[in-house]
């Protein structure tokens, strides 16, 4: 199951033992703003996303192209560099902020200098060795690439549902907020999956239009099975643990899986559900208590 995959992956990351572990890399592109209001907004969103990324993986695996530096050449160079560094087991998260256009046939991401169209960008994605990818296109008209950029092992999030939603989007700002928001962490595990971040950002966008009494000019979309299990941001720093704690964590993960399995039987169990749930949760809490006593909070 997806969640189990995520937990196993997280566990591997936390233990830091054995052969080179799968790493998460980020490429964040803040495209051309044009109008100073948009330029400032895009820059702020780009910066906030970069901050969340660095908090999650450190500085060396985060590439940011912004404003004047966000050229096609720089973008292609960034992809080339990533292709040299990434292994198949690694993961890549790409965030695109700025203006996009759609002429009925082709989507284009506005960059400083020549733009890049959807097909060319898809071709760049094809070259990336990482098997698990998350592409968040927060630009206007981004819905035009929702299907064309879809692929196995790839989750695609777009700020609009089609190329015809052409207004500058609010989604970028709320995606940036989501990456650092405890409220977005619905399962309280200290990290955000792509699905959690998307749900939060999407809801925030809808609510912002409602608060303004306006009809929404954008409707975000998500595709790809891996979104649920793709950890896109951590809210707290990760630490390395001892083998004893590692064993406790393994027990905790096992209990979480049992909770997840029990939830699926809720209707069937009726009144017996809550007592069984309590038993698992109490044991899980006791295991966590031991982990906390033995290791720093993570």
């Amino acid at each position, binding site marked *: 199951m997806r969640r189990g995959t995520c937990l196993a992956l997280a566990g591997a990351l936390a233990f830091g033992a054995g052969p080179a572990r799968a790493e998460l890399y980020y490429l964040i592109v803040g495209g051309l703003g044009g109008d100073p209001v948009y330029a400032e907004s895009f820059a702020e969103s780009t910066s906030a996303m970069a901050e969340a990324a660095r908090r999650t993986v450190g500085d060396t695996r985060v590439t940011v192209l912004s404003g004047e530096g966000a050229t096609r050449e720089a973008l292609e160079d960034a992809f080339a560099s990533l292709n040299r560094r990434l292994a198949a087991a690694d993961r890549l998260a790409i965030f695109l902020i700025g203006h996009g256009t759609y002429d009925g046939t082709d989507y284009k991401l506005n960059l400083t200098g020549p733009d890049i169209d959807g097909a060319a960008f898809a071709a760049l994605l094809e070259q990336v060795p990482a098997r698990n990818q998350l592409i968040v296109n927060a630009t206007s008209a981004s819905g035009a690439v929702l299907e064309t950029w879809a692929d196995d092992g790839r989750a695609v999030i777009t700020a609009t549902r089609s190329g015809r939603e052409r207004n500058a989007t609010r989604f970028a700002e709320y995606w940036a907020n989501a990456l650092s928001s405890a409220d977005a962490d619905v*399962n309280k595990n200290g990290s955000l999956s792509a699905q959690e971040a998307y749900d939060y950002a999407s809801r925030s966008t809808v609510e912002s239009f409602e*608060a*303004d009494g306006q009809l929404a000019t954008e409707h975000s979309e998500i595709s790809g099975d891996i979104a649920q299990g793709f950890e896109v941001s951590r809210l707290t720093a990760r630490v390395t643990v001892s083998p004893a704690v590692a064993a406790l964590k393994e027990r905790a993960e096992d209990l979480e899986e049992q*909770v997840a399995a029990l939830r699926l039987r809720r209707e069937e169990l009726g009144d017996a559900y*809550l007592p069984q749930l309590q038993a698992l949760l109490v044991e899980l809490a006791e295991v966590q208590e031991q982990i906390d006593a033995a290791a720093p909070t993570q």
Partner: protein
Amino acid sequence: MRQGAQIHFLLPLIPGIALVAAPARAYEIDYSADRAAELRACDAHYFRGRRAEAENCFEALLEADGDPRIRAEAAWALGDSNKAFIETANGIFREAIVSYPEDAAARTRWGLLFAYTRNATEAKTLFDEALSIDADYAPALVGLADLAAEQFDGIARGFVDEALSNDPESIGAQLLLARMELEVGNLDSAEVSIDRALELIEARNLPPVEAYALKASLDLLRGALESPWIARALEYNPSYGDAYAIPAYIFVITRRYREAIDFYEHAVEVDPRNWSARTELGVNLLRENRIDEAYDHLETSYNLFGYDAQTRNSLILIDSYEHFTVELFDGMTTPRGGGAGVILRLHEDETAVLTPYLVELINRSIATFSERYAFTPEEPVIAELYPVAADFSVRTAGLPGIGLLGVTFGYLVAMNSPRPGLDGEFHWGTTLWHEMAHIFTLEATDHLVPRWFSEGVSVYEEWSTGPLNGRHIPSHVLQAMAEDKFLPIAGLDEGFIRPTYENQVIVSYMQAGLICEYIATQHGQQALRTMLEHFRAGDDSVTALEAALGITAAEFDERFAAHIEAEFAPTFANLDAWMEAQSAMLQHANESNWTEVRGPAESSIALLPFYVDEGSPYLYLARAQREAGDTAAARATLTAYYEQGGYAPEALLQLARWHLAAGEAATATRVFKDLLQVAPLEAAVHAELGDLLLETEPVEALREFEALAAMSPHDEAGLKYRMARAHLALGDRDKAREQLLYALEIAPNFREAQQLLLEIVR
């Protein structure tokens, strides 16, 4: 009705009100001297109630291959009973204009057809075109005046005066002037105009029924229970429903909705096809919460005449009630004893969140005003809140006073819902308090209270007993005061109903509030009660004032002016300097030059320390201080802002959090609670307030979390955990445990919930 201080913000909330607010009107008499004799012959049948003869007459003119101007008029007249002819009339008028391009009368009449079908924009264009052909053409001026008068725009009077100057024998101008005078209670002036119009009507042997109906309106406004003029109108035309509908409309403008309903019912009995009277009947039944009856009449009207937006919108509004909940809360005991209860009509999405706050505030206002105005509500108070601004605007359509935030129709209060989130320039608690005060002044006087006094008491009560500190007088009102723009008390109603300059309505609200405050301060609260008693007895403002205060209106105006000068002299003296400082502050802020913002912001605060409304310098200074990293100073600035009555929700939320961070839980709690009067639909406020109240007021904490639950927050696990803590604080370990299980079911790694669960089970 409460006027928002920031009117430029409010206008977008009432889209289209300028065009659809007009009261429904039926086919009217054409008094112009250039109406063709052939048409007059048909009119003679029509306005005598001989419908069949009139229809035959008009049909013959329509079918004849004659002057398109006559044929268009004939089609229009037939359209009053068969709306299909309206389009025919429109088409023939178009031909007529082509054939007679220089005929001002034809363009004017076509414009009146557009006005009849509620298209004010096209109507105005045609009236303007007529005047460009003949600048003195009185009927076109009357057309413009009528359009403006329907919007309660003060320019109406100018057009009427010009029409009469060009044509002193313009019957239409005289009758329109009479209506306008009746609306503001200038009964003697109205009588002069009506009598002059009648002379002219009789001299020209034209139908007198409209003038008779206005005479009846005059009698009724003078306190007569009946008027012989209605009988005279019906004698002339037994099916003239407007004999009742015209006085009914005057009742509506003077807020006597029950009398209006009675008269509109007579109107439709006399003339069942009078769609405009039916619409007005439906709208006013809605104001009395008689929804099913309202719907029936509105639907009938719509089927008779489908052009009226108010009819259509009112039907749509009633249909939308399927998404509203209606709940009765039993009456509380007021100091005077008894209490008829509260009915809330709220959108189903808002019911769970808003209900406890609304009930609390309404009950508190009833207790307060019962004591202060010696009147106990005899029926349940009904409060309706509309999350969709367009729905609320349907409720206020046809009423004078733009930019309304709330409206009261007797025992029924309607207002906009608070906005979701922190986007609130609308203090719903104050608005509701204001509207609740209206219930008392209206019902204590059987709706005979003049507009200015009812508004004045409501504004005064906002300032003195309401949920918000301080008086909130906008800067442009202070400017108007400095320019001595207050009206004499005897004419203050005109400032509300026929404003003659931009913002005069708000100026009038503030003047009325200051007057009531002055009366209460100088002569005691009893003086206000005495004036209410006199209004109930049918006395006008001057008589009531003299009886309550023992001085003439002229003396009052002098003393009040002196009081304003004495109290506000320092403010007036500082106003120019304040505006300069504000301008400099805003310019620096627009350039994000926060260091430079500080100086002018501090000056501005020193000059007018009470100013906390739009563009308040407190907010800019606090921002500048934050930008400089001086959080302590920013907190002190926002504290001062809050104490002066500032309520910008983002600022209050930040202030509450700062107080909390500084360990001042009690102050933080107070700010959070006040924040609910502006932003009750912001989840963070309920969550953080609830957290604060857990130890000291766990029942209130649970209420906050229940409100939060009603908002379906994103963080469900967090909500369940909060509920668990509240139950635990109330001693219910089982409920607490259950909520924790639900929290951990969603988020098994939720540390705090895990720890609390272990605490409970061990």
